[in-house]
């Protein structure tokens, strides 16, 4: 199963979107979502892509990513009454839920010693052009392996930076860090990745 490359325009025709919530501030929307289904629906629409991005790149499989994304939002809905707005983006809470589900997913797979096909789909995505050489394919596989060996926090940083295209300041707010801390973490991540690749004779 492949993810959609559309921008979501078709989504509007399938979802009877309540536009009165479209411009509402997040804090107000969260309080409404505790008693209004469509308000929660708006929170979902605002965050589904970023959560899917995170889960997809953490596990590398579209079908499983859909499953975990659905579970993330159902779990959020089940606990929305207990959510307290502390000035942190709502997405930060969703990422925590998604992170726990992804961690359980990996624990279950390692317990059953399942063969990891995680990166096959991701590499297949990146190497869409038939002209890509085998060396490039291998290089990307090596880079994905190196990313997977990084701590979860660094993997999340890379996904937020490149898949979600967030600024360092926005990433910092989601991860509970300052902007300068994120810049520092990013540079340390690059150094670690480069050292890992060099150790395996990739540059």
């Amino acid at each position, binding site marked *: *199963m*492949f*993810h*959609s*490359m*559309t*921008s*979501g325009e*078709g*989504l509007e025709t*399938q*979802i009877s979107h309540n536009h009165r919530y479209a411009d509402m501030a997040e804090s107000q929307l969260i309080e409404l*979502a505790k*008693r*209004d*289904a*469509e308000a*929660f*629906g708006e929170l*979902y*629409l605002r965050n*589904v*892509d970023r959560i*899917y*991005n995170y889960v*997809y*790149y953490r596990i590398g499989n*579209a079908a499983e*990513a*859909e499953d975990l*994304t*659905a579970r993330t*939002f*159902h779990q959020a*809905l*089940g606990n929305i009454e207990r959510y307290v707005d502390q000035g942190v983006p709502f997405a930060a809470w969703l990422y925590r839920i998604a992170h726990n589900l992804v961690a359980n997913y990996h624990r279950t797979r390692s317990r059953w010693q399942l063969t990891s096909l995680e990166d096959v789909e991701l590499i297949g*995505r*990146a190497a869409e052009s038939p002209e890509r050489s085998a060396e490039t394919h291998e*290089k*990307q596989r090596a*880079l*994905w392996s190196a990313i997977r060996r990084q701590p979860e926090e660094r993997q999340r940083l*890379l*996904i937020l930076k*490149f*898949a*979600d*295209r967030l600024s360092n300041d926005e990433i910092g707010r989601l991860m509970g860090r300052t902007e300068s801390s994120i810049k520092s973490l990013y*540079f340390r991540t*690059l*150094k670690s*990745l*480069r050292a890992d*690749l060099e150790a395996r004779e990739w*540059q």
Partner: protein
Amino acid sequence: MKENREDGLTLAPYLALSRDLSALITPVSPDDQFRAQLYGSLLDRARCQQSQPMLLPLTEEDPETRIPRRVVRWVANVPGQDRRWVWGAAAVGSAVSLAGLVTYVWHRRGNRAA
């Protein structure tokens, strides 16, 4: 100037790696049908969650407590500080029923002996 060139040479591998990462990790979107279906299921559940608890089927049991789900949901909707009396009342009711049953059995045994 020389210092900038040295900095540029030092940073070049990291800039190249950054470009590789940018090409590798690109935005993805979930399938539109999946998005719409999940939206629908979340709204259905939210409406059920927020509706009258007595509408839930009696036979549905909470998997953890084995208590009929509408009872669990009603208790969950009671403010936290009031829940203790709810559970207390349920415990008293159960104790009274049990006491009544024991009394009945004892009485029957007494009649048989007589």
